[in-house]
């Protein structure tokens, strides 16, 4: 493993539950994955998969009624050592320093990132100055208002915003959707984070704008060398942007591996079902093959393997009783399914 492929973020047995009126709801159930420098891990899943909750847990941005399992570990590797984010107080200074400093995050709704009452320049400069120590460590130099502004303009230009010097003094509502998304990327990357978490950043965009943004993100990743966690429900997007993929279902990772291989030869019945259900451009009008059934409500988690209620290959007595562990398929792939476990037929 070269230095550039060292795991930057390691999640071990992450579990998150929510304390609601209806009882404890398990959103993430023992999830482990790794994000490496310079590489993108795509996390794909549908509603209820827990993908957003898992990534929000990394930066401790969960609502007040969320409970992280005591055994969970969220390890971030920095130059000065390793820090377990799960162990930090959720509202403490350490976490605030990490957020926006070492770890950047971009969301689906750019308007959610930006306050409507301040210009984007104002907000970017605020972020840069807030994390000036972190920036000094990463790229050197000291930052005051003037240098922060220049840095912000450079970032805006870098993300392809025309007339950056003009736009920096505009308010978020004055920009179009694509522009706002670029501004959000600029904001997130202006502090040179070592890890970027992107939660459905292109879902709300038109397809032509989405293509531009994906292109941009790939370029920036090449240039800045950061690790990226890309969350989406769109397999097509994952195929373009992520080298590795983890497929989540109802709070668990059911399959992981290099994207190309997982798409070419999906191992888990859910992954297979998902890929088969995708509408295709090249087959013309045809009947599709849906995944039978409905996604169970997180309040009624099925016993054993969470997918067994919809699995065409379920084995009664096993799949409805025992939760499958992670079975390695080869050096880079693993799957959580009894079909591949020791008791496999």
């Amino acid at each position, binding site marked *: 493993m070269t230095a550039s492929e060292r795991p930057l973020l390691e999640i071990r047995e992450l579990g998150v539950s929510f*304390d*609601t*009126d209806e009882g404890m709801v398990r959103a993430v159930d023992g999830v482990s994955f790794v994000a490496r420098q310079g590489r993108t891990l795509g996390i794909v899943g549908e509603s209820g998969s827990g993908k957003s909750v898992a990534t929000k847990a990394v930066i401790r941005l969960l609502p*007040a*009624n969320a409970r992280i399992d005591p055994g969970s570990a969220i390890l971030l590797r920095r130059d000065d050592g390793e820090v377990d984010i799960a162990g930090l107080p959720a509202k403490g200074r350490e976490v605030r320093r990490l957020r926006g400093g070492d770890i950047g995050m971009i969301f689906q709704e750019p308007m959610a990132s930006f306050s409507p009452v301040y210009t984007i320049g104002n907000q970017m400069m605020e972020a840069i100055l807030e994390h000036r120590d972190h920036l000094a460590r990463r790229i050197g130099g000291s930052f005051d208002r003037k240098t922060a502004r220049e840095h912000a303009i450079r970032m805006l230009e870098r993300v392809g915003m025309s007339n950056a010097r003009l736009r920096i003094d505009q308010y978020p509502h004055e920009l179009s959707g694509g522009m706002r998304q670029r501004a959000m990327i600029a904001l997130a990357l202006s502090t040179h984070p070592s890890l970027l978490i992107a939660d459905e950043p292109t879902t709300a965009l038109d397809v032509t704008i989405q293509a531009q943004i994906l292109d941009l993100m790939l370029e920036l990743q090449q240039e800045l060398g950061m690790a990226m966690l890309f969350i989406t429900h769109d397999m097509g997007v994952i195929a373009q942007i992520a080298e590795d993929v983890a497929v989540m279902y109802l709070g668990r990772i059911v399959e992981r591996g290099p994207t190309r291989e997982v798409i070419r030869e999906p191992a888990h019945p859910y992954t297979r079902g998902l890929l088969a259900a995708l509408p295709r451009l090249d087959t013309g009008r045809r009947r599709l093959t*849906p995944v*039978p*059934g*409905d996604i*169970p409500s997180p309040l009624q988690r099925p016993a054993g393997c969470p997918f067994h*209620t*919809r699995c065409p290959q379920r084995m009664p007595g096993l799949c409805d009783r025992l939760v499958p562990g992670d079975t390695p398929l080869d050096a880079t792939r693993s799957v959580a399914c009894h079909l591949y476990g020791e008791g496999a037929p």
Partner: protein
Amino acid sequence: MAAAGLPEGPGRSAEELRYYTASQWELVWWRLCRHRAAMAGAFVLALFALLGIFADFVAPYGGTSRDRDYIYGPPQIPRFWDDKGFSFRPFVYALKTERDPVTLRKIAKIDTDTRRYISFFVAGEPYRLFGLVPANTHLFGVEEGRIHLFGTDDLGRDVFSRLMFATGVSLSIGVLGVLLAEGLALVIGGIAGYFGGWIDYAIQRLTEVVRVIPVIPLYMGLAAAFPREWSNIQVYFAMTIILGLVGWPTLARRLRSHLLAQRNEDYVLAARLAGASSAWIIRKHMLPSFTSYIIVDVVISFPYVILSETALSFIGLGLRPPTISWGILLQEAQNVRAIEQAPWLFLPALFVIVAVLAFTVLGDGLRDAADPYAVRKS
């Protein structure tokens, strides 16, 4: 069916079925029942309402009857036990009058030797229940002498009895005032919200004008305008009407915004596309959602009306004696002698506070229960 994969099976529990077939009303009710503070508030209000409605029965004496022997008398607390022994029946001490040697005024003194036992369902002063049915049974009383649970005022009138009557009057003004205000708000806000456009524009401006009218000078002017000859009943109703007429703008505005938002809901468009007429849409889609909203609004508005009446009567601009309301009672407590020597005359304030708190808490609970997007606290 299997292909569609509907997770339907005999496994559904009765509990789940109840939840699924529950109408919106039932869901709201269940959510409300879990809100303990709101339930407490509802209980208190129900209690007050009963006291008010059956005031004639609950109160041992009429609202104006006087006990000349017991002026500014302190409350008589029922006891079950004293140095003479234990008694199952609660009792109070008798009172005897003496002359204060210095001021030569009559003072009531407690005679700890004589017990007056409290009986329930005793015969007492006659009254007409609901103004119609003649009766003379009272909830409790004493055979001889009088019982003053909350003491008496400067004219020897039983505070407890007057408080019961006052509760009835204040609450009923609240009800009528709110109903009138809500009714007006419904019509005016409804028209504005449903039709939009210039009708809405005109009504909005009217609303603003009415809202801007300064309330105290308005009341003062109106109170001065109440003819002296008017009976207390007339003053009472005029008071209620005025409170209603001034109270509608805020509600109307809220109802209008709610309606305007509702018009844009997808399901309203779906109904229109289904060929529904405006009347159908209002009746089937808007009114039901409206109703829960109105109920919440009504409950939250109550305290304002009651406090308005209380404040106005307190400063002498509202109801007049011998009508009894919380405000009137507090007006009578408005002198130094009362503060120093007869603090029990402020008990009506306690009732006002409790009532307003109960309404507020119940209103909060209703609003939370009716709002499907409310964030649940753990």
